[in-house]
């Protein structure tokens, strides 16, 4: 087997590995969203037992851990530039989430806003920030 053919086969397997890990992450993410919806709406509309609610929360936590591990694998399967883009995006998202989250909480505790600070707003903020950071970082290196 020539070295060029070997490298091509290795590279193709790397690309397929990245696609596989991306698809795996998408499936884990969808499963986690489904379990969080199950906890929220199940306890409201499907059952009244707190034991079932507790079991649903444990299931959601377990699937959440699976999603985190899938995300870790996805980042590790990228090449060096893809990992750099992810690292910069995650650093900005983490920093802005902490600063923005604390400020948002203080707005609530000091009664500068009428409604209670909701964790869902912070999660939404983190998601949008992360997507925008990945988009602009990818453009920066293209």
């Amino acid at each position: 087997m020539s070295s060029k053919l070997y490298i091509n086969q290795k590279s193709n397997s790397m690309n397929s590995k990245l696609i596989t890990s991306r698809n795996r992450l998408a499936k884990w993410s969808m499963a986690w969203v489904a379990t969080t919806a199950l906890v929220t709406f199940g306890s409201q509309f499907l059952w009244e037992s707190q034991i079932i609610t507790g079991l649903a929360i444990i299931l959601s936590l377990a699937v959440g851990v699976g999603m985190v591990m899938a995300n870790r694998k996805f980042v590790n399967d990228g090449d060096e530039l893809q990992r750099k883009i992810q690292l910069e995006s995650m650093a900005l998202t983490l920093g802005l989430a902490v600063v923005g989250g604390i400020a948002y909480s203080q707005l609530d505790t000091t009664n500068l806003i009428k409604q209670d600070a909701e964790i869902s707003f912070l999660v939404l903020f983190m998601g949008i920030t992360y997507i925008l950071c990945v988009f602009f970082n990818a453009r920066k290196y293209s």
Partner: protein
Amino acid sequence: MKNNIKELRAALKMTQSDLAQQIEVSRQTVNAIEKGKFDPSLPTAFRLAAVFNCSIEELFVYESES
């Protein structure tokens, strides 16, 4: 760092995708390296040198940022 990867690649009539496959990175990474927007790691630099059959010093020219 400046580099002459684009010229060497063109001389070998390779596309960015061809080169990306050979050095085990994405095409976007090859593009970023060629434009000088991203400095590759040492293993990637060695793989590039192996593809073009030259030394790393012949591929990359270090420029001080100051």
